[in-house]
């Protein structure tokens, strides 16, 4: 790590398991699952009827009675999480007029539903009936733009879209901007919504768990019975600041981003050797960026989501990336409860990890009964683990080759 230190001074989260870091952590600690029959759209004829939907999401709860009509579901999720993160970190409107704040958002689709609906309306009723307001939301940077308008965020505004790793890449990107002094305070994280169009795509690609068991039983990361992931939704944003600014304004410091690393598997998961090596490589980059050795990593928040190949590659990649020193490494995989929230997933893991650093509770992987025989991660458990975490490793691994790792360290006041 070279340049300014980057600290986390607040977090905002909108998820089916709670709309604050504490509530999300409590739900995860109790092993609650968000994976239930979907109500947002019909899943008739699809292989998987389950998803992690935010059933009662109401943006006015966070944003008040302003005009929300121009914001689609993804934009509302992001603007709400931004409101919570700004409030949590103490950045009032007045302070934001003096110090410009930016936003780096990771999202896989932004709103595929908005894009598709706009096009379908033009097909069905004729192009003259397509909605200009919806058109402005068909761009993939729409949610970041809408959120900037909602909260007057005039500094850097960047959207990153690298699939599952989008959110973690966004945090990495923001970290670099603060390290180099280009920005001083940035909201960074990710979001994706649950919608029919992307759900249909994942289902048809055979990536979702197909079970006839009761709701909540699947997916099961690292388990020998795993047969796919479940899709979820949500938004999670961290307030990242240059440490000097955070101290100057007396902000509470939740943690620090000490390292990040990325790599790409050119075989896109088709070749196990390359896939494992890419994951290991991202971890090694993050470790050297953080000036940390494998034994200094106190827990892993895995990307594992229940996919057959992906979980296997990650288990092996972690061991390779940490030079085999994983026998005593506690592991969690919160996608077992939240599902695969795509762009939101890495930042959700970051929010959860900060809570673990605070109270020492690492959530279990509730349905885990039998870790796949040859998986070298010995400390994946169904029950919560006590963990004194100073440095935690977070992985994000995409369906098609993207790998990103991030290392957070505990805040100073602990």
């Amino acid at each position, binding site marked *: 790590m*070279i340049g300014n230190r980057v600290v986390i001074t607040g977090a905002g989260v909108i998820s089916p398991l709670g709309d604050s870091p504490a509530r999300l952590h409590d739900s995860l600690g109790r092993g609650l699952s968000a994976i239930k029959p979907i109500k947002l759209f019909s899943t008739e004829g699809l292989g998987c009827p389950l998803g992690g939907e935010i059933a009662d999401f109401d943006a006015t709860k966070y944003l008040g009675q302003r005009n929300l009509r121009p914001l689609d579901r993804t934009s509302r999720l992001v603007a709400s999480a931004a409101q919570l993160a700004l409030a949590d970190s103490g950045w009032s409107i007045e302070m934001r007029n003096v110090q410009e704040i*930016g936003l780096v958002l990771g999202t896989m*689709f932004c709103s*595929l539903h908005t*894009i*598709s609906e*706009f*096009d*379908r309306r033009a*097909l*069905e009723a*004729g*192009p*003259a009936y*397509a909605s*200009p307001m919806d*058109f*402005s*939301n068909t*761009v*993939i*940077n*729409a949610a970041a*733009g*809408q959120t*900037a*308008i909602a909260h*007057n*965020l*005039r*500094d*850097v*505004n*960047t*959207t*990153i*879209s*690298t*699939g599952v790793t989008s959110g973690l*890449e966004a945090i990495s*990107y923001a970290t*670099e901007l603060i390290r180099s002094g*280009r920005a001083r305070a940035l909201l960074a994280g990710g979001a994706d919504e649950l919608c029919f*169009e992307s759900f*249909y*795509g*994942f289902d048809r*690609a*055979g990536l979702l768990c197909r079970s006839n068991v009761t709701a909540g039983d699947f997916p099961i990361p690292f388990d020998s019975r795993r047969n796919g992931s479940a899709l979820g939704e949500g938004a999670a944003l961290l307030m990242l600041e240059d440490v000097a600014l955070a101290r100057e304004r007396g902000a509470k410091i939740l943690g620090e981003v000490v390292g990040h690393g*990325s*790599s*790409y598997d*050119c075989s*896109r998961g088709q070749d196990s050797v*390359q896939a494992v090596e*890419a994951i290991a490589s991202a971890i090694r980059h993050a470790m050297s960026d953080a000036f940390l050795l494998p034994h200094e990593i106190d827990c892993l928040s895995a990307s594992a989501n229940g996919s057959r190949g992906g979980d296997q590659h990650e288990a092996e990649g972690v061991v390779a990336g940490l030079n085999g020193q994983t026998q005593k490494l506690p592991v969690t995989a919160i996608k077992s409860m939240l599902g695969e929230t795509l762009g939101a997933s890495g930042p959700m893991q970051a929010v959860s990890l900060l809570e673990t650093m605070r109270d020492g509770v690492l959530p279990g992987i509730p349905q885990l009964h039998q870790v796949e025989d040859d998986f070298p991660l010995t400390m994946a458990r169904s029950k919560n683990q006590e963990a004194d975490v100073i440095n935690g490793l977070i992985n994000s691994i*995409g369906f*098609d*080759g*993207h790998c990103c790792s991030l290392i957070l360290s505990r805040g100073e006041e602990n």
Partner: protein
Amino acid sequence: MDRRIVITGIGVVTPIGIGCEMFWNNLLAGQSGIAPVQSFDTSEYNVHRGAEVKEFNAEDYILNLDAAHLGRASQFAIAAARLALADAGVEIGSLDRKRAGVSMGTTSGEPREVERFDDAYVSKQLDRIGPEFIQLYPCHVIAAHVASELQFAGVNTMIPTACAAGNYAIAHALDVMRAGRADLMLAGGSDAFSRITFTGFARLGAVAPEICQPFDRFRKGMIPGEGAGVLVLEPLDRARRRGARIYAEVAGYGLSCDAHHMTAAHPEGAGAERAMRQALADSRTNCEDVSYISAHGTGTATNDRLETIAVKRLFKDEAYRIPISSIKSMLGHTMGAASAIEAAVCALAVFSNRIPPTINLNDPDPECDLDYVANSARELPVNIAMNNAYAFGGNNASLILRKRELLN
């Protein structure tokens, strides 16, 4: 590692030519790539012209992946990447593949995949849509396909900041290289001609019926287009060591957000000015030293007027001296590729001391009273070029390219 990052290769796929040489010659000659739309039937629209890429044969460039199963934006991106590497004289086998990365921008990703989904949906034949939809649609596949084709295992990023995406992607690649995270980056943007984009701009009343005439008093709007632009970026020391031709240094950039309106720019050009100001500061450039500005210049009434205001706000009297041109007068608006192609133009301008014209500019708008290089290319010393790009969401990005002779 040298923190000075230079452009050593250029690859473009455009409506007026594929490959750097053909494109540049046509651009200087003021040739237009705007013609009746062929990608889909426009009879239900009130506008019918676009800037599509013609005579593009994906198999000429895609040697390892299955070209027929890739979306058009991925095909363009791979072609531009291969052209850029060849132009740079880079032997792919000589690279440390873990330190070779890709940073791309786009507006729409692979829009034809979602359009195919929508066609099936409205005709109640959704079962025709299989696994390929989610494998080929998401925008990150453009950067992923480039990397898989070339076996680049380093940083791989997609920045979909709409019509300014190319500049964002190049700026990101610059940061990756300044931080020493790669030896070589391919950076640029790609977009395929899209029904969704065409419909949207038509509904906004932003599409011109015939031609694109930025800064002209009677300008009637933009013309949607398609294409790709990719640059090869390397640290200066590495480029010198291998005796590479250096087009220009990527000297700095600035990003800002209007936080004002999704589709309309800030009425005083405040966000655009902030991005330009930061780009100058980042590259330690003074207003007096800027030799050329490649405008966003879409040809819509508002954009061209506000862009002029923003340039005047920052450059004051200097604004009247600096030649400014919009190649969108010839290429139309190639969306996420636009600012990448325009960055290539800036690199070629500082390399060859020539700047392309703004064509169709016959009756200047009194509110647009700067020097827009009307209708003919110009030859003059170009030391420093500024590349401006603005997007939906109020995303503004300015890039500064500097002449290699100014490097020590």
